[in-house]
């Protein structure tokens, strides 16, 4: 298979970035929007061409999807270790190309309407280009170091875009927080990479992931504190992934990241960048699965399940619609991660892996839709808070219908996309770990509940006293909504198990009717409860909120994790480490040097009296010296 043209997919947005970045003053806003959209359209077309070529023409040989790669050395460390740059084509990277392209294209189109009149319009499209380039680079990476490089680049694009409204204090703080928290996780990632490099002698995915390769077979060669060093490395790498995917306890940056413009939240913080962690585990899945009988994979499963539950509980209580969606994203990412965690490897055993990727795909569509829908609402009412909304279905029909479709999809109501992928996840969890299955099922119910709380709160109920009558958004904004809504309907019918599987050979996935029935029931109960509570204002929600007492309060305050982090950074690190060090440097280290200097001056002051300039003094010293020397010589001579 000829994969040369695929290199163009990332290059085009990069060129757009350079063009818009360097000439941002000279290019008119209207033109820069078109440059961004058409650049990405080209990438999208190429991505679909790649999908067609890979999945339907060349990819499959002997019923197994092949891996194609092309790379060249970027930097040498030692004779064996080097960083390569290249592209790796296999089922998940091709699938991700589609996800990134579609969502990014929709967001580009949407932004032309949403960002209209903003003074940084061109800059915005430049940053979107930079992000899209980095994300493509990440999914196409051939080795751990390359993925790390693009990992950092998506991180910095995210930083720039969260801090897009850079005169707003909260946006600055949020951008900083997002970067530093993920950087902290990347510290683990980097050490994991170095361990892998040192003990296996390669960074290359194809070599590492080969089930018969030395990296996997020799995992037991060296151990550290009772675990194989490779297991340690995988855990550390997963920490990196957990940082980007906002898994507990690194989740604190994601809600704040909503300070960025809403299209950015849709693209980066819902559909693409935050799934990088899921993608990373999937990318290294054979290692996670085979090394030490999947020890690291178990950790992955529990972290995912816990985060899914944790975030869903918080999501119920939030009143800022973007934050509800942010916690919902975290919860769904937890879903994907737990699916990977409970997955096996061969054929139907690998249903968790398949389901995770499937959910990643469908979630990207309906979550992007939810965010863009929320953006459309925010655009109309100029507020993020539920209290400022209500009854909007009359004013914004397209937003209403598309948002409803997305909500049904995420709630797991058939036949919308989310139902199919979520069902596969539940099947995988049921087959491997009943505890995790129960958690996942409960989270499914919570998801349906909070999502419809949101939906009813925005589009039903009484009108709030609006300053201006809310209007439906322009076509540039509703068009992407419609496209994504269509994808959220049909996305579930793609036979994913034939394309994307752990061992790269397709299998037939069947709907497990009893489990599906349970899942649907739970979903419907969630929706129904939300209907009872929130369709009309009736005070029921307040009564139940009171019943939960402190738990409700904790959930609203996100279980105080922000405060804990603030305490550790501000009170402990800055105040008890950094400030004393700065002081120590001034007083003790510098003080010692000063002291040496001062003592020299003092000493020289003391002895300078000897140079008195009086001839008598010198004469005395001379005679005294002669006498002393004479005495010494006499003494030596006589002995």
């Amino acid at each position, binding site marked *: 298979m000829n994969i040369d043209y695929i290199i163009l997919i990332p290059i085009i947005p990069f060129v757009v970035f350079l063009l818009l970045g360097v000439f941002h003053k000279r290019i008119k806003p209207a033109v820069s929007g078109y440059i961004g959209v058409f650049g990405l359209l080209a990438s999208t077309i190429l991505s679909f061409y790649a999908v067609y070529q890979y999945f339907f023409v060349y990819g499959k040989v002997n019923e197994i999807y092949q891996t194609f790669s092309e790379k060249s*050395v970027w930097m040498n460390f*030692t004779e064996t270790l080097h960083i390569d740059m290249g592209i790796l084509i296999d089922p998940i990277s091709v699938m991700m190309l589609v996800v990134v392209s579609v969502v990014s294209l929709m967001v580009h189109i949407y932004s032309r309407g949403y960002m209209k009149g903003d003074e940084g319009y061109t800059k915005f499209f430049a940053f979107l280009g930079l992000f899209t380039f980095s994300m493509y680079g990440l999914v196409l990476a051939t080795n751990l170091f390359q993925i790390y*490089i693009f990992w950092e680049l998506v991180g910095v694009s995210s*930083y720039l875009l969260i801090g897009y409204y850079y005169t707003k204090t909260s946006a600055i703080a949020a951008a900083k927080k997002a970067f530093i928290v993920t950087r902290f996780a990347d510290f683990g990632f980097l050490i994991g990479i170095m361990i892998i490099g040192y003990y296996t002698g390669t960074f290359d995915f194809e070599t590492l992931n080969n089930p018969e390769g030395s990296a996997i077979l020799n995992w037991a060669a060296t151990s550290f504190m009772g675990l194989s060093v490779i297991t340690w490395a995988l855990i550390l790498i997963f920490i990196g992934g957990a940082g980007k995917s906002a898994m507990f306890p690194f989740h604190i940056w994601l809600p704040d990241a909503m300070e960025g413009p809403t299209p950015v939240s849709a693209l980066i913080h819902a559909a693409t960048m935050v799934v990088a962690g899921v993608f990373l585990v999937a990318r290294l899945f054979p290692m996670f699965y085979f090394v030490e009988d999947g020890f690291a994979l178990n950790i992955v499963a529990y972290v995912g399940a816990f985060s899914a539950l944790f975030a869903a509980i918080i999501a119920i209580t939030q009143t800022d619609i973007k934050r509800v969606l942010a916690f919902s994203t975290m919860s769904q990412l937890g879903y994907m991660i737990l699916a990977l965690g409970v997955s096996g490897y061969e054929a139907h055993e690998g249903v968790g892996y398949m389901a995770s990727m499937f959910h990643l795909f469908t979630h990207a569509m309906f979550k992007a839709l939810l965010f863009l829908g929320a953006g459309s609402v925010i655009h109309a009412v100029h507020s993020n808070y539920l209290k400022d909304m209500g009854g909007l279905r009359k004013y914004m029909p397209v937003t209403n219908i598309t948002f409803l479709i997305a909500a049904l999809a995420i709630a797991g109501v058939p036949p919308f996309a989310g139902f199919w992928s979520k069902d596969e996840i539940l099947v995988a969890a049921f087959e491997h770990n009943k505890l995790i299955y129960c958690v996942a099922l409960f989270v499914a119910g919570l998801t349906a509940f909070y999502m419809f709380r949101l939906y009813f709160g925005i589009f039903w109920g009484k009108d709030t006293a609006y300053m201006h009558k809310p209007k439906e958004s322009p076509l540039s904004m509703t068009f992407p909504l419609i496209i994504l809504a269509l994808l959220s309907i049909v996305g579930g019918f793609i036979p994913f198990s034939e394309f994307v599987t752990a061992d790269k050979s397709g299998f037939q996935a069947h709907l497990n009717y009893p489990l599906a029935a349970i899942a649907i029931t739970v979903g419907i109960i969630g929706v129904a409860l939300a209907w009872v509570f929130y369709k009309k204002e009736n005070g029921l929600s307040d009564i139940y909120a009171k019943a939960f007492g402190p738990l409700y309060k904790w959930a609203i305050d996100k279980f105080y994790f922000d405060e804990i982090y603030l305490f550790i950074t501000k009170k402990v690190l800055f105040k008890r480490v950094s400030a004393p060090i700065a002081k120590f440097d001034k007083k003790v280290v510098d003080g010692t040097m000063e002291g040496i200097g001062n003592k020299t001056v003092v000493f020289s002051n003391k002895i300078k009296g000897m140079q008195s300039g009086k001839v008598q003094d010198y004469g005395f010293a001379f005679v005294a010296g002669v006498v002393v020397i004479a005495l010494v010589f006499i003494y030596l001579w006589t002995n």
Partner: protein
Amino acid sequence: MDILSLFIIVPIITILVLVFTKNLKQARVVSMVGSSVQLLMAINLVFAYFKERAVNSSIMVFTKDIVWFEPFNIHYTIGVDGVSVALLLLTAIVVLAGVFISWKMCDLPKEFFISLIVLSIGVYGFFISLDLFTMFVFFEIAVIPMYLLIGIWGSGPKEYSAMKLTLMLMGASAILLVGILGIYFNSDADGGALTFNILEIAQVNIPIESQKLFFPLTFIGFAVIGALFPFHTWSPDGHASAPTAVSMLHAGVLMKLGGYGVFRVAMYLLPLGAIDWSWVFIILSVIGVVYGAFSAIKQTDLKYINAYSSVSHLGLVLFALLMLNKTAWNGAILQSLSHGFMTALFFALIGMIYGRTHTRDIGKLGGLLKVIPFISVIYVIAGLASLGLPGFSGFVAEMNIFVGAFQEDNMFMRVATILSVSVIVITAVYILRVVGIMLMGPIKKEAYLKLEKVTWYERFGILLLLIPIVGIGVAPLWLSDMILESLDPFIKGLL
């Protein structure tokens, strides 16, 4: 005239011409021309080096040897390898950028440019010398103009800072001289004549007792200028008082003499001493790395932040040099280069911000992105480069250091390595803090609305420094391989 001696001759000619200039305009044009010629020569040298390297496999190429002082066997011996070629290029770029940044130096311009160029002679000479004594002489030539440059053209408590800097560096020189003489008097250990020639001494088996005695002296002597903890305190005060171009040159180039000296002299000539002592200095350098970064978090003066950041970044250079493998060494040299460009860029930008707002206190600045966008955007880029973002030179250097350090398979080294890797987080904290407070946010003062836009010579200086940062970051292969190839003979004694 040979290709290397020109690096000394051209600045001397520049100075001679400068003596006859009458005003700022003439002085700066002469300096600009002289430095540009120097830069062209440095670029030419890179190509010439590649050509020569293809046919010549000796340790040093373009060598030349002239007897200077017969009785002590002192020679003017010069030669270069990949490492010194790279550092010469760094010097030429930073000097030219420094000249552009000082375009409006109104006080005694002629004398200022003369001192600046004298300083650069010292640096060029140091990088091409293969004779310990000559090297030492050039080292002093580089350090002494510093005193004048800070004492006369500085700001704040300039006399105090100049004095402190000079005394501490002179103290280090004294220790270094003892070390060098120690090496010299042991250079006849195998029965030859006493010599200062580095390549010849490397062939001699200096007794292990002497190596153990003289290694710490030589190491500390060089490392003080490389800001080794706890001998770094001259640097924050010195930088804070120095005029912009001097800070650039000092942090960008002069501080690199330390790492280079350690690499070329201490590690190469006293390998057994190095092995014996490395743990002590590893501890000190790791402390410097983490400690510098933590102190930077709490500073409020831009120059202090950058000075502590330099302590941290250069700590990595010394740390990497103490790892006994080529990957880490390659990282050390790359980090020297990368830090040179980055920190010079930082100081240039700080100078521009200070020149416009008359303050370096980040608490008083705010919203600069709106009023001086070009300078601010470059500051963000420099910050991102400094925190090791891929695509910039810092990442390339740091990854070499970390991966190299990780090759040392024992618990002590592993802990040291992981501690120093942690700076990727701490650096992000202090860089983003400055960016958040100073560049973003609302505009703090009315007066900032009328700040002067960036001028053409400032743009030029900035771009000169930015191009190599991005160039190394995007395509590191040629440079990193050029350095890597040159390391073999130097590391042999340590393995």
